[in-house]
C-alpha cells in the first residue's frame, strides 16, 4: 500500500532560522535607533546590499551545483578598472553621453561573462578543483587591477562621473536602480532555481554528480553555465558599483567573495551542494548588512567588531543547518 498523501510541510529550523534572525535584527535595530526604520536608512541598506546580493544570487547556483568561486571580489575590481579605462579612453571620441556609458556597461557584461567562462572552462575541461582554480584567478585579477591602476586609483573622468552617477543614486519612485536591479535578479534567480530544468540540474549535480552523469544530464555544460552566469552577474554588480565612487583600486571588492559565500550559506544553501535557495541568500545578505548598519547607527558595540559578529552568525547558521538535517 502506497501512501499517497503528501508529507506534511514541516517548518524546519533551517527555513525559519534565517527569517527569525532577520526579524530579530530588525526589532533590535528599531529599538536601538529610531532612525533605523526610516526610509532613508532602509534604502541605504538595500542599495549597499545590492552589489553583494547580485553576486550572491549567482554564487547560490555555483554552490548548489557543488562548486565555489573565490574570484568574484577581485573579478569585480578588475572589471571596474577595465570599465573605467575603456570609458575614459572612449570619452574624446564619443563625448559625455549615453553611448559611452552603454559602452562601459557592455564592457562590464562581456568582461564578467568571459571571466566566468574562463573559470568554468578550466574547472570543467581540465577537471581541476574549483577552489584551486578560483583561488588562482582571484590572485590574477587582483594583481591585474593593481597593475592597471599602477598601484594607485583609477578614476572615471569627472564630467563622466557626474553623468553616470544617477545610475547609483536615482531610480523610480525613490527606489534606486541598484535595488531595482537586485530585486529583478532575485526574482529571476528564484524562478530559475525553483522551477526550471537548469535549477533542477544544478541541485542534482551538487547532490551527486555521478548520478547526474548517469542520468544523461550535461554535467560539464551546466557547471560551466553556473560560472558564466555568476561572471555575468559580477558584471551587473560592477555596473551599479562604479557610479557610486567613480573609481577602482586594489582595495575595490576586497572580501566580497567571502561575504557572498557567507550570505549563501546563512540563507540555508548547503555548502557542499545539492540544495540551494535564492530567497534564503537574500535573507543572508540582509542579515550581514543589517549587522554592520546597526553597529554603525548605535554606539552600543564598536563597529570594529562587525567581522566578529558576522563570523559568529555564519557558524551559527551552519550549526542550525546540521541540526535540521539530523532531525529528519
Amino acid at each position, binding site marked *: *500500500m*502506497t*501512501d*499517497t*498523501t*503528501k*508529507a*506534511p510541510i514541516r517548518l524546519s529550523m533551517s527555513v525559519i532560522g534565517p527569517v527569525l534572525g532577520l526579524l530579530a535584527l530588525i526589532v533590535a535595530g528599531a529599538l536601538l535607533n529610531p532612525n533605523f526604520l526610516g526610509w532613508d536608512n532602509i534604502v541605504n541598506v538595500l542599495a549597499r546590499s545590492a552589489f553583494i546580493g547580485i553576486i550572491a544570487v549567482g554564487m547560490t547556483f555555483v554552490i548548489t551545483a557543488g562548486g565555489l568561486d573565490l574570484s568574484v571580489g577581485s573579478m569585480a575590481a578588475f572589471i571596474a578598472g577595465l570599465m573605467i579605462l575603456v570609458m575614459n579612453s572612449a570619452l574624446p571620441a564619443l563625448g559625455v553621453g549615453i553611448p559611452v556609458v552603454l559602452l562601459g556597461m557592455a564592457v562590464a557584461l562581456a568582461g564578467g561573462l568571459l571571466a566566468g567562462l574562463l573559470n568554468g572552462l578550466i574547472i570543467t575541461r581540465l577537471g581541476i578543483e574549483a577552489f584551486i582554480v578560483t583561488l588562482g584567478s582571484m590572485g590574477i585579477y587582483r594583481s591585474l587591477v593593481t597593475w592597471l591602476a599602477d598601484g594607485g586609483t583609477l578614476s572615471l573622468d569627472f564630467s563622466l562621473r557626474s553623468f553616470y552617477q544617477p545610475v547609483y543614486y536615482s531610480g523610480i519612485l525613490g527606489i534606486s536602480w541598484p535595488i531595482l536591479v537586485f530585486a529583478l535578479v532575485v526574482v529571476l534567480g528564484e*524562478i530559475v532555481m525553483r*522551477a*526550471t*530544468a537548469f535549477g*533542477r*540540474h544544478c*541541485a*542534482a549535480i551538487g*547532490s*551527486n554528480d*555521478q*548520478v*547526474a*552523469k*548517469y*542520468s*544523461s*544530464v*550535461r554535467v560539464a555544460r551546466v557547471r560551466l553555465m553556473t560560472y558564466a552566469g555568476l561572471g555575468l552577474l559580477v558584471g551587473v554588480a560592477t555596473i551599479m558599483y562604479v557610479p557610486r565612487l567613480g573609481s577602482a583600486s586594489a582595495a575595490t571588492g576586497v572580501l566580497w567573495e567571502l561575504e557572498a559565500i557567507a550570505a549563501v550559506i546563512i540563507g540555508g544553501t548547503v555548502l557542499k551542494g*545539492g*540544495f540551494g535557495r535564492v530567497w534564503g541568500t537574500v535573507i543572508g545578505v540582509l542579515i550581514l548588512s543589517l549587522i554592520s548598519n546597526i553597529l554603525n547607527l548605535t554606539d552600543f558595540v564598536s563597529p570594529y567588531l562587525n567581522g566578529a559578529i558576522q563570523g559568529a552568525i555564519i557558524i551559527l547558521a551552519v550549526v542550525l543547518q546540521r541540526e535540521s538535517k539530523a532531525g*529528519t
Partner: protein
Amino acid sequence: MGHDLAPVLELRQVSRSFGPIEVLHGVDIALQPGRVHALIGENGAGKSTMMKIMAGYQPPSSGQVALDGKPIAFASIGEAEARGISLIHQEFNLAEQLTVEENIFLGRELHRGPFLDKPAMRARVRELLAALDCRVPPERRVAQLSNSDKQMVEIAKALLRDTRVLIMDEPTAVLTRAETAVLLRQVRALRAAGTAVLFTSHKLDEVAEIADDLTIMRDGAVVWTGLAAGMDEHGMATAMVGREMSDLFPPKDSTPGEIALEVTGLNVPGHARDIGLTLRRGEVLGVAGLIGSGRTETFEALCGLRPGSGRVRLFGREVRINHPWQAQALGMCYLTEDRKTRGLLLQKGMRENLTLQALAKFDRGLIDTRAEDRALDQAIADFDIRGHRGALVGNLSGGNQQKLLFAKTLLADPEIIIIDEPTRGIDIGTKQQMYGFIRRLAAQGRAIVVISSEMQEVIGLADRVLVMRHGRITGELAGSDATEEAIVRLAMGVAVSAPQQESAT
C-alpha cells in the same frame, strides 16, 4: 520453537514508526546461539528496519529488545557492538578513501605506545582475509575494490570483533556464486563456534541451503516462523508474496525485427577488447560472465559513460557517442547496477529522481510539476513502488529504490535499453513483475540487453546469451544451448571453442 537453547537476542512485540507511518507492527523474533536464522520478505516488508533495531541503530517505537532474556535499550551502536552484536548493512558502510586495513580497524586501531602498531594490524587483516578466501592486499584503497571484495571487507570488519550475534542484511546480493559459497562456508564456521547469525536474502535457494530457523515477513508483520526445514522454496515464495506464485519467467514470445545496434571492434582501455555484437528490435540479449569480466565497462563505454573506441551503428546509422546524453538522444539508455552511488539521488524525493533523466519531457520553460506528479503516480502504479511519497529516496527499501530506478530510465523512452543487474536486491514477487516488464518492452519492439550475474535470470529471460571473460566475448549461446553448464564453461575459459589463449589483461 522447539529448541532447548535460550535465545541470545530477541525482539518482543516491536513496532516502529517513521513520522506518522508505522512500518513494523508488533514483530517477534528470537535468535539462538549456534543457529542461522533467515529473515525473508518482500521489498519494504521491514527486514532492514528490524535488523537495525536489533543492532541498536534505531530504537523501537514500542516493544522490547531483549539480550540474554533481559530487556535492554542500547544507548548507541557502540554499546550494541560492545555487547557482541554486529550488523553488516545492506548498503556498504566503508570509508572509500581509506585502505582495506584502515577500514577494518577503523575506530579500534591497535597501538604500541602512542603509535599505531601497523605490523600487528596488517598480520591480523591478512589472517582475516585469508579465512574469507579474499585475495585483496590490505593496503589497497576501498574505492578500488569490486563490490564483492567490499562485502568481504565488511565481513572481515565484523569478524574482528568478538561477535556473538552477527546480523547481515542481504550479504550475498552483490556476490557471485563462488563468492557466496565462500561466505556460506564462513557462516557455517561461525555457527559451529556458537555465534547466532541472522541474515536476509532474496535468493531463496541460499536460504534453503543454510538456514536453521526461518522468519517470513509481509507488510511489517511476521507471517510465519519456524524451522527452515519445514518450508520449501515454493512455500517461502508463496508466504512472502501472499499469493500463489506461477512461473517466474514469462514466455519468450517476441519476434526479432530490424537490427537496432551493431558494434564492431569496441575497445575499452583496461577493461575490454574487440567486442562485437548485434542486437535486434524485439530481442532480449543476455550478457553473462564473472564479476570483473568487463561486462559493465563494455556497455558503459558504449553509452559514452567511459572512454572507448570502436564502430557503433544504431538502426543502421554510424554514430559516435562520447557522452551519455548523446546516447539517450539516439534512443539508448544504460541502467546502472549501482543504484546507490550512480543511480539515485538519495537526498532527494521520488519525484525529482523519477524525472531527472527525462526532464526535457516536463520542461515547458518552467517544469510542469503537475505532469511530474502524474508520472510519479503512474510509476508507482506500474512498478508497485511502496513507500511514503514524500520520503527521501535514501529511506526507501532497497528493492523499491531499484524499481524507482527502472521507472526513471524508462521514462526517457529509450528504444535500446541496457539493464545491468536488473533484479539485485529485489524480492521474488517483484522479480516476476520485472521480468514480465522486460519481456513486454521487447514485445513492443524495443531492443534489450540484460547483464546479470544470476545465471538463471540470463537463461530464463534472454533469447541469446553472450558470455564474457577477461574483457572478451568468449561465446554466444542461443535457445536450448544456453545452459548453466555451458555458460560457466565459457565464463571460466574452459570451453572447447574458446580462442587459443587469452592474453592476460
